[in-house]
């Protein structure tokens, strides 16, 4: 029975392919995701359920954040309008299934890039838009100023389905401290429980701690300890198997970072078309045919810079100006002492 079913399916697929051959452009044909996105008219983007600075919706349902900006950049490149994004809030637990099952096309949700996630579960990480590390938050009144003061019996609130759970175990085991893990499904509940005094410490990525601190009933009562106990490179993820789409998302992110490097902003992007620097001219689409490889026009990167801005603008707007992490730390350009370094667009 299966044999016939298989033959039938391939027959249907062949007929469908024959029909589409005549109408599609070369690259769109290579990328099913790009084709579907252009047909639907919006980019389907998975984000968090509310993490200020990364992906957070206001009362009117407008999403902002540096993770949100990655999806907006892709929408600007592919559809010409950064607002043509449909955001799907996902819990840590749901996120990968939503992506692999095809419910969303980009997962831009403060997700740590690890070997097993990249290799095992049908995902591909396209880059890093925030270099982070796991830290601990405690109440100021506890007098704790360093993780070395943690003692046996400490209770730690965190999220399930994150690398945090694993790092926490590694950390406490290496220090030989007995601890009580209290793991919730949603971040809001973690914050509420920690805030109520259920746990002595709250652990997650340091950017997350800084962002969630703003949600506490009295943010000034809490401090983030200086130690960083893990590497957490956060970045957008796509499904495995669509390399053109993967390249589009990767280079949309890279464009934002490289634009900052060359000083191209949303305000001066148009003027930069007449720049003397060929690298700048390529980035704003005044030279070369960089978009053709993805099946896009030549102004895709210009639209990203004009509508979303460069990485620095996005960081300033979402993370620095909101008081979450004013200091860019490792997320500064390599030319300014950070580790943001992307391959050249040429």
């Amino acid at each position, binding site marked *: *029975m*299966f044999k016939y*079913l*298989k033959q039938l*399916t391939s027959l249907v697929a062949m007929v469908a392919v024959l029909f589409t051959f005549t109408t599609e452009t070369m690259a769109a044909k290579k990328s099913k995701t790009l084709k579907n996105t252009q047909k639907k008219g919006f980019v389907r983007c998975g984000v968090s359920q509310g993490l200020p600075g990364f992906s957070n919706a206001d009362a009117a349902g407008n999403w902002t954040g540096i993770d949100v900006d990655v999806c907006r950049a892709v929408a600007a490149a592919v559809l010409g309008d950064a607002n043509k994004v449909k955001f799907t809030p996902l819990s*840590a*637990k749901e996120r*990968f*299934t939503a992506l*692999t099952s095809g419910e969303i096309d980009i997962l831009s949700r403060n997700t740590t890039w690890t070997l*097993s*996630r990249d290799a*095992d*579960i*049908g995902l591909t990480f396209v880059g890093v838009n925030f270099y982070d590390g796991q830290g601990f938050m*405690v*109440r100021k*009144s*506890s*007098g*704790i100023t360093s993780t070395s*003061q*943690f*003692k046996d*019996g*400490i*209770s730690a*609130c965190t999220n*399930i*389905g*994150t690398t945090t*759970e*694993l790092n*926490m*175990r590694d950390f406490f*085991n290496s220090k030989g401290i007995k*601890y*009580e*893990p*209290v*793991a*919730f*499904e*949603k971040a809001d*509940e973690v914050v*509420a*429980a920690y805030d*109520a*005094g*259920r746990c*002595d410490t709250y652990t997650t990525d340091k950017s997350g701690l800084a962002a969630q601190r703003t949600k506490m009933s009295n943010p000034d009562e809490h401090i983030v300890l200086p130690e960083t106990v893990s590497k957490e490179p956060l970045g957008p993820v796509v*499904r*495995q*198997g669509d390399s053109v789409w993967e390249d589009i998302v990767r280079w949309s992110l890279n464009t934002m970072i490289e634009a900052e490097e060359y000083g191209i902003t949303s305000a001066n992007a148009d003027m930069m078309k007449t720049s003397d620097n060929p690298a700048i001219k390529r980035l704003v689409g005044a030279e070369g045919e960089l978009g053709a490889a993805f099946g896009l026009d030549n102004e895709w990167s210009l639209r990203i810079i004009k509508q979303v801005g460069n990485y620095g603008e996005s960081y300033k707007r979402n993370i620095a100006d909101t008081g979450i992490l004013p200091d860019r730390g490792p997320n500064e350009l390599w030319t300014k002492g950070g580790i943001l370094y992307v391959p050249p667009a040429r």
Partner: protein
Amino acid sequence: MNFKLKDLGPQLITVIAVVLIFGFFTYNAQINMENRGIDFGYGFLSQESSFDVQFSLIEYDGSHSYFRAYLVGLLNTILVSVIGIIIATVLGVIVGIARLSPNFLINKFAAYYVEFFRNIPLLLQIFFWYFAALRALPLPQDAEAIFGVFFLTIKGLYVPAFIWQNLNIFLYSIIAAVITIVIIRIHAKKVQENQGKQIPVFYISLGLIFILPLLSFLIGGVSLSFEVPALKQLATTSFIYEGGVSLPPELIALTLSLSLYTATFIAECVRAGIQGVGKGQKEAAASIGLTPNQVLKLVIMPQALRIIIPPTTNQYLNLTKNSSLAAAIAYPDLVLVFAGTALMQTGKAIEIVSITMFTYLSLSISISILMNWYNKKIAIQEK
């Protein structure tokens, strides 16, 4: 021939349809997983889980396997279901009978309780008990001792731990008491049937269940001491209790909300069951000289139980399945530990979800079988 075809036709079509649908889904999943480079297999169950769980009935930490993590989740689900079912049943029966009380206050109180708790979504109740009630509890250092040994704090309920010596002798004495009671009961029934004499079985049983274990203390070398929880300072304002046993607030909140919610439905089943027994039965029983207690025990309840058991089975099943809402308040049940953390760490969505579904199915069917057996046992046995 025609007659047979008419009979077989629809059944055959149903079977083919079911096979086709399942075949399609399996095939579809296979193709899609292949396309996306996802491997299928249960080999991950023996891998090291490398995550810890807050509360476990068996020994477990991250160095154990995913299968062990599955068992931890399963046992936690069973624990909360069993405690929930017991409390819900006791409370449900009391409230159900109270709703029939001629006393206005008791009657109305029971009615308001039922209407209030069964009309608020369970998830909200769980959040209420966890977040609202939890915030109201004191921090460990501010907690007042209850009876000098219990401490109810925001970090959980701390109770003294029992430290046994020769625990096995104590357990044997209880088993011996139970066996003796069963023998006496059988004997008493025979005596009553043959000679019409009644033996005070209840008082004898009560005596035995106390005296035998007591003897084990006096001459069996059994001894029991308590370890009372003691406050321990972790940091300037951070305390916990050490020693003793700690029940996490997640377990308490979940059990409380599940049993308060389900008890309302059981109360209605009980009320319906008692009201379903004809008034004449009660009057007839009273007229032959049975005491009110005997009327309830020998005439009303045996008949009412037949009406009560089937819908109550449904409530037990609901409670067990509703326990999966635990994930919202960090109680490490099957859904949180296995279909949550383990799924995330392995990415084996289809395997883990299918195991979880099958587990809940087995749990539910086991409860059904048990309750159906009990239902059959109390059904009218026509002679």
